[in-house]
């Protein structure tokens, strides 16, 4: 069994396809006639341009505007007379083979770019490497693994996958991805989740251990790959797949329905997403909107920081995909456990209690303004809500709001259109915010409770630390009382309260949250329909009574028992 990180949930069973693209070099082969080499070069350029146009179109349909931009720039580069076409043709006239001329000219550009100070510009050298490889592939007539035309279902196994790699593939036949490196926010993982393709990343040694053509089993939820399944294991997987399929079919009836309890109490079910590509599918899975759009993916993608335009396109894309449903985007929540190399954050002794999230943004006004401007500009595409993470004091909140006001004012001065009705809210995850919820509720348009961090901070437990992880539980009375306090304060001040931590998707916890009066539940898109069905079978009044009882509990065990009891009485 191979172990990695589950990056896109689901089960898959198919023949393995090992993908190992070679890095090509021109070699020393003597050149043919000048005319022949020039013609070969021009033919290669046309071929790569034609393919880039196809990929651009494919990206437009299946991925997003950022991916399209990559291929548009490739085409422009291949039409650059001065720096690409003329020098190469001249070098061929001077006796070089087309492949040698291409390699030398591109390497020259790559070396100039790599030496530039500006990270964003120097990062573009990877585009030139990509184009160079494509040209060499045609000039050297090397057959690279062609994943664009597959005749059978496969699970692709590779060291890593670049945007070009992924975009070129025949996605209809790809049942799963396994990469040796990469994380859950890598380009491949995001695309895989958007397309619903089970994926395991960070699976060291996969290429060595998996043989071409052999049937493998992949569990994208667990992050495991079985390179040599027995007949029994194969049968088991088939049965689980059928079960899941039947369950999914049964839930489809809940897709376009509102979320209402058996006795008529309505709440809102929203999705947690980490990329624009996940938005459409999440809405199709029954989401009434997005309760948490984690903006960190933009910062984790490259070695350089995302500029305002790249951010604007991502946020606008998500809002458009939501087709009029509300989208709540959280400002950068990096630092701490969420390492983002391009931010250059110095190592901290205690990252959870350090300069991260909104504190980092307030410390770096330009960084914050870039994101806020991109957000407000995107606000013309749909109902946008912005929320600030890790707010621990009124001062912090007011500073963040002032930064938002500054972004609005500057955009107005520049005559750049922006969203007019953008709501501003905050995450309630630092205990101080829950304790003073009444004070905060007067200065925001909504609350969103982040239970993951709220539990850690309140109980002083690091859930990633094996020696104490068992102490982490959202059933702890202190946590539930803080949740209660937050919801009450929100309602007293006329604002809605959402929850976007994992607890909001916990079936056993939901009746309690319902009974405490939570207005919106935001969770992983895969849970939405099941939760809607669950709530339809609950009595809000009974949940309220149970919640009152639960608030009297003194231990987590006691509280969980009370919460669980309702499950047995309801159908």
């Amino acid at each position, binding site marked *: 069994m191979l172990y990695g990180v589950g990056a896109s949930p689901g089960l898959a069973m198919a023949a393995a396809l090992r993908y190992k693209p070679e890095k090509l070099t021109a070699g020393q082969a003597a050149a043919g006639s000048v005319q022949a080499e020039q013609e070969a070069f021009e033919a290669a350029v046309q071929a790569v341009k034609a393919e880039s146009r196809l990929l651009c179109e494919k990206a437009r349909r299946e991925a997003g505007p950022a991916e399209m931009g990559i291929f548009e720039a490739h085409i422009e580069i291949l039409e650059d007379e001065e720096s690409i076409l003329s020098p190469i043709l001249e070098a061929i006239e001077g006796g070089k083979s087309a492949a040698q001329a291409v390699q030398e000219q591109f390497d020259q550009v790559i070396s100039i770019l790599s030496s530039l100070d500006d990270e964003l510009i120097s990062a*573009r050298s990877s585009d030139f490497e990509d184009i160079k490889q494509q040209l060499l592939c045609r000039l050297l007539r090397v057959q690279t693994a062609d994943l664009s035309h597959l005749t059978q279902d496969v699970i692709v196994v590779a060291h890593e996958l670049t945007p070009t790699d992924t975009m070129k593939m025949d996605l209809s036949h790809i049942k799963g991805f396994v990469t040796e490196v990469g994380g859950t926010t890598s380009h491949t993982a995001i695309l895989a989740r958007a397309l619903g393709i089970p994926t395991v990343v960070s699976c060291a040694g996969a290429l060595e251990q998996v043989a071409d053509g052999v049937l493998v089993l992949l569990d994208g939820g667990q992050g495991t790959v079985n390179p040599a399944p027995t007949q029994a294991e194969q049968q088991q997987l088939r049965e689980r797949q059928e079960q899941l399929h039947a369950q999914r079919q049964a839930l489809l009836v809940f897709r376009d329905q509102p979320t209402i309890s058996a006795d008529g109490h309505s709440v809102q079910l929203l999705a947690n997403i980490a990329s624009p590509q996940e938005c459409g599918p999440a809405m199709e899975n029954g989401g009434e909107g997005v309760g948490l759009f984690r903006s960190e993916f933009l910062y984790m993608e490259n070695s350089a920081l995302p500029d305002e*335009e790249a951010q604007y396109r991502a946020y606008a894309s998500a809002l458009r995909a939501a087709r009029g449903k509300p989208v709540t985007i959280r400002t950068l929540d990096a630092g701490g456990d969420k390492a983002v190399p391009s931010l250059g954050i110095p190592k901290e002794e205690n990252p959870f209690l350090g300069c991260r999230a909104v504190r980092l943004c307030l410390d770096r006004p330009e960084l914050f303004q870039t994101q806020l401007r991109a957000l407000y500009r995107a606000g013309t595409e749909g109902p946008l809500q912005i929320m600030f993470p890790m707010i621990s004091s009124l001062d912090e909140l007011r500073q963040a709001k002032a930064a938002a006001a500054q972004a609005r004012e500057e955009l107005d001065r520049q005559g750049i259109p922006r969203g007019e009705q953008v709501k501003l809210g905050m995450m309630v995850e630092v205990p101080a915010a829950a304790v003073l919820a009444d004070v905060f509720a007067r200065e925001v348009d909504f609350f969103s409770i982040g239970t993951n961090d709220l539990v850690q901070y309140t109980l002083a437990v690091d859930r990633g630390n094996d020696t104490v992880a068992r102490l982490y539980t959202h059933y702890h009375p202190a946590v539930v009382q803080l949740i209660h306090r937050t919801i009450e304060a929100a309602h007293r001040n006329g604002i809605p309260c959402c929850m976007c931590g994992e607890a909001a998707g916990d079936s056993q916890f939901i009746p309690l949250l319902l009974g405490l009066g939570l207005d919106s539940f935001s969770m992983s898109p895969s849970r939405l329909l099941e939760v809607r069905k669950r709530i339809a079978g609950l009595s809000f009044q009974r949940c309220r009574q149970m919640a009152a009882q639960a608030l009297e509990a003194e231990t987590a065990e006691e509280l969980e028992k009370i919460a669980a009891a309702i499950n047995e009485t309801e159908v």
Partner: protein
Amino acid sequence: MERNAFTIINPTGLHARPANVFAKLAKKYSCSVMLELDGKQVNGKSIVSVISAGIVQGTQVELITEGEDEHSAMEELGAFLLSGCGE
């Protein structure tokens, strides 16, 4: 010949995307389009030359158009630079 000075205002300068748009716009015109900075001239119709020049925020460049449609070129390209390259 027309010549005007511009300060690059968008935070990320003339990196890939704006360079792409700039070069495409420049190629619409028959006149020559050059960007001058630090005493060197760069061909505005060459995306690679523009990117390689490393033009970042705050850089002062001179836009030089020369040829039949130099005036329209200056207008459109100048507006593009003034607007922060559409960012």
